[in-house]
C-alpha cells in the first residue's frame, strides 16, 4: 500500500475513533497526524509487509496514543475541568460528530425527506432514542412485525440512496 492510499483509507477511521473518545477536535487531529506518521514510517522501513495486518497495526497505534493522552491528562487533572457541561454528551448527538459528518448528513437529508413521515418516526425512535421495536410498536399502535419490516425497509432504502449519492459525488 502506498502512503497516499494509507492516509486516504485510514485518516477518516482514525479521526472518527479518536474524536469519539476525546471529544476534542484539535487533540483528535493532532493524534491522528501522529498515528499516521508512525504508520507511514513503518511502511517506509518495510516493517508492514502484510497489508491485512495494517488495519490492526494502525488501530493499535491510535489506541495506545489515546491511552497515553488519557494518562497524561489524568495527571494534569485536566479531564475534570475540561467538560464545563459535566458528564460527556452522547456521542450520537455530539456537535463534533455533527460537524465531522456534515457531508454525509447532506446526502442522508435528501433520502430522509423522500421518506414517509411514519417511516421516519420509526427510524427516529430506533436510531435516536434507541427504543426497542416492541415498545415502538406498542406506542404507535402498530403490529410489531409491521414496525420491524418498515424499519428494515427504511434502513435499506437509506443505505442504497446514501451509497448511490456517495458514488456520484466522487
Amino acid at each position, binding site marked *: 500500500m502506498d502512503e497516499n492510499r494509507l492516509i486516504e483509507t485510514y485518516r477518516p477511521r482514525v479521526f472518527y475513533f479518536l474524536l469519539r473518545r476525546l471529544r476534542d477536535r484539535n487533540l483528535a487531529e493532532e493524534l491522528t497526524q501522529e498515528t499516521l506518521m508512525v504508520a507511514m514510517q513503518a511502511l517506509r522501513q518495510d516493517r508492514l509487509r502484510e497489508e491485512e495486518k495494517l488495519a490492526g497495526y494502525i488501530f493499535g497505534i491510535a489506541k495506545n496514543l489515546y491511552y497515553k493522552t488519557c494518562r497524561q491528562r489524568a495527571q494534569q487533572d485536566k479531564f475534570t475541568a475540561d467538560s464545563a457541561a459535566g458528564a460527556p454528551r*452522547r456521542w*450520537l448527538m455530539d*456537535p463534533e460528530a455533527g460537524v465531522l459528518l456534515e457531508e454525509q448528513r447532506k446526502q*442522508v437529508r435528501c433520502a430522509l425527506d423522500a421518506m414517509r413521515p411514519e417511516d421516519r418516526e420509526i427510524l427516529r425512535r430506533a436510531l435516536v432514542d434507541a427504543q426497542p421495536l416492541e415498545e415502538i410498536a406498542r406506542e404507535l399502535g402498530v403490529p410489531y412485525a409491521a414496525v420491524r419490516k418498515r424499519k428494515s425497509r427504511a434502513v435499506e432504502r437509506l443505505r442504497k440512496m446514501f451509497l448511490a449519492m456517495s458514488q456520484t459525488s466522487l
Partner: protein
Amino acid sequence: MMNCHDIETHEIIDKYLGDRLSDQETEEFEQHYFGCAHCFAELQWRHAAALELNVNKNNLKTLPERVPRVWSPWHVPLAAAASILLAALMLFRFYDPQILVPPPVVQNESPEAGGLAGASDQNAKLQQLAMVEEAPPYVPSSSRGGEGNLALEKFKEGMEKYVQGRYADAIPSLEQSARLDPSHLPTTFYLGICYLMTDKVDHAISRLSRLTRPDSNPYSDESHWFLAKAFLKKQDLVSARKQLNSVVASDGPHSEEAQQAVRVLNEIEAGRR
C-alpha cells in the same frame, strides 16, 4: 473477533452509537471498522441519519406521540371508496367553494392527550429562548502592528464583515485565520458566533466549547451564554441547562437573563411530564 454478519445481526452499530456496548465489544467493533470499509461507511451514514432525524425531532410534520391506527386493513379500501365518492360529488355538483373549504382542524388541548397545541406552545417558548437577538459587538483594536501577519489580516477581513452583520460572508476569512493561528481566541469566539447567527449550530458548539475554561481566556462567560443558545436551538435542554447554570454562577452580564431562561426551561419540562 466480530465479523460483518455478527455486526448486522446484533445491531452492533446502533448499540455503538448509543454507547450500549461493553468496553470489550466497543474495542472489538472499532478494530473491525478500521479494517472494513463497508462497516465504516455503514457507521457513518447511520450516524448521519440519526443526527438528521434528531434535528427534525420536534417538527410537527412528523407523527405525534400516539398515532391512530392507520394501518388497519379496512382503511385502504374505505379511503379509496371515499375518494371515488368525493370525485363523483364534485363532478355532479360543479365547483362550489363552500364544499371545498376544509373543515377546521380541531386541536385537542387536554393535557392527557398531550395535544399538538401544547407541544407547539413549548416549541414557541424554546424558539424564543434560543433566539440570539444581537450578536456580541466587536470593537477593533486601535493598536497598530500585525502587518504581515496573515492570520491577523484574515481575522480583520472577517471582522469587517461581521460588524456589518454579514456573518455568512465573514466565515471564510475567519476560518482561514483560525487555520493559520488556531490559538487566537477572538477568532475562535467570533467564528463560533458567526456560525450561531447563520444557524450552523454544531459548528458553533464546536468552536465555542473550546473557550469555556475560565482560566484560559476572557471569552469564557460569553461562550457559556452563546453555547446555551446553541443547545437550545438543538433542543438539547440538558446541555443548555448546564451552560445556563454556568452563566448564572459566573454572575456576569447575562446572569439575570440566564436565570430567567432556567425558569422557562423548568416550566417547559414540567409541562412535558
